[in-house]
């Protein structure tokens, strides 16, 4: 089944969840803020259904 048509900005920060070893959280937080400031580099939008035909 295809994915839902959600506009789903793929947050690169979220994609790294669980990857932080103990003790590295603070550094990662700073880096993550940097990523947010960078804007999301990858954004996915389903356009399935965009058509214009009855």
């Amino acid at each position, binding site marked *: *089944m*295809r*994915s*839902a*048509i*959600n*506009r789903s900005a*793929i947050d*690169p*920060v979220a*994609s*790294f*969840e*669980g*990857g932080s*070893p103990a003790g*590295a959280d603070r*550094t*990662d937080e*700073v*880096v993550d*803020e*940097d*990523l947010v400031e*960078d*804007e*999301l*580099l*990858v*954004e*996915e*939008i*389903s*356009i*399935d*259904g*965009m*058509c*214009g*035909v*009855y």
Partner: protein
Amino acid sequence: MSTDTERPFDRNRRGFDPGSAYRLSQQVALREEPFGALAYHYGNRRLTFLRSPSLVDLVRGLDGEETVEDAISASPMGERKKSAVCALSSLENSEILEKVSPLESPGAIRAAATKERAEDRRSTQPPAPTRRLTEEMKQGLDAPICLTWELTYGCNLACVHCLSSSGRRDPRELSTKQAMHFIDELSSMKVFYVNVGGGEPTIRSDFFDIVSYCVGRGVGVKFSTNGGTMTAERAHRLASMDYVDVQISIDGATPATNDPVRGEGSFAAARRAMCLLSDAGFDSLKISAVVTRLNVPEIDDLLALAGQFGAELRLTRLRPAGRGVQTWHELHPTPNQQRTLHDWLKDHPEVLTGDSFFHLSAFGEALPGLNLCGAGRIVCLIDPIGDVYACPFVMHPEFKAGSVLGEGGFSEIWRNSDLFDGLRHPSTGGACNACGAFDSCQGGCMAAKFFTGLPLDGPDPECALGHGESALAVLGPGRRPEPGPGHSKKVAATVPVVLGRAR
């Protein structure tokens, strides 16, 4: 400012492995745009935006490196390794990238050339843009994401809401040769797919030739049909083709609801076509329904009907265009039904709408999609004789931008049309600009305003806040534009379109 940590290349939880080789999926078309690139996956039909030219360069460079790590180091993103890994991980998750097996690993054969190209770009690329995606879309893309192509005005039905008032074929229809030349142009512009309609497109004797040619040139096809011409042989032929979606048009879950709009016997014909396609193993089937006052109560049943055939349900908004100029006022959903529809769509994200109902976002919660008018920005319409209009719902001389047969062809129109330029750079937001909901609904649908006689910078006639109804109530006589003579069959042309009349 932070720098990359010592762990920029960690394997992340989804299994993306920067120590391995990846490449652009063979099912993906990548098209560069000023903000980066669009990637369209023909298998899962997802559209992904790569919002940095540097990232695009990195993705293109993957194919020449033994590992992702090598590619990043050689790319303009070499100093932002963690961002690069995260972005590539997202692309792998969207199936834009695929892992290369060790046996296929390209080695470093092309690495030197790739690094050289990356070095060139590293010194010349501007920083990644940070504008919101919708702002990028509003100013237009280098080519449409998709476009609607009405192959013929000929039709075996005479639906009361037909956008193109179809019925009779136009002797000036594009020839097969002209159609294929146009497809060549779409291919070179990297238009991802075309929405083929009509009329009933399958009545053209060269219909399958055109579809096959599209697919062969890397342009996907979604076509809408009322199903009347479907045969077992045609269903099997469609099932054997890649990148072709079929949308069967049904406007109600029962003949009693559907046939007054689409014509007597049309529900049975559509259902028969779905059976044939299902029996043939066709797996990209959709039911396409125009939401009307009549079928809102049946919307769950429409979804269930689609489920019976393993199909997806696509809903689209009724526009007051074509023969719909005459029937819109009695067919369009009531304000209460619009609210019901909005809430239902929020609860059913699996239902496809393709941005059709972005005007309903003013109810408070945005619906999935870009939520903007794409006319002349990301979509447009080609009519059967090759004329180009801003969108499928405004087939009117005022929104005609030219002809694909003209000098410069379609690409010249798309890139340099004054009409499209005006749509991409509107001078004013008009009365709606002062409304608190404008950011949500963007003022609604241009076509719906135009054909109901409302100003283009005013409210949508179906404005969720009721401003459209108020505007319509005080609209002076003669404000509604004539839809034009249309292409209705001569018999139908002498008989007023009456909702409920069997055709």
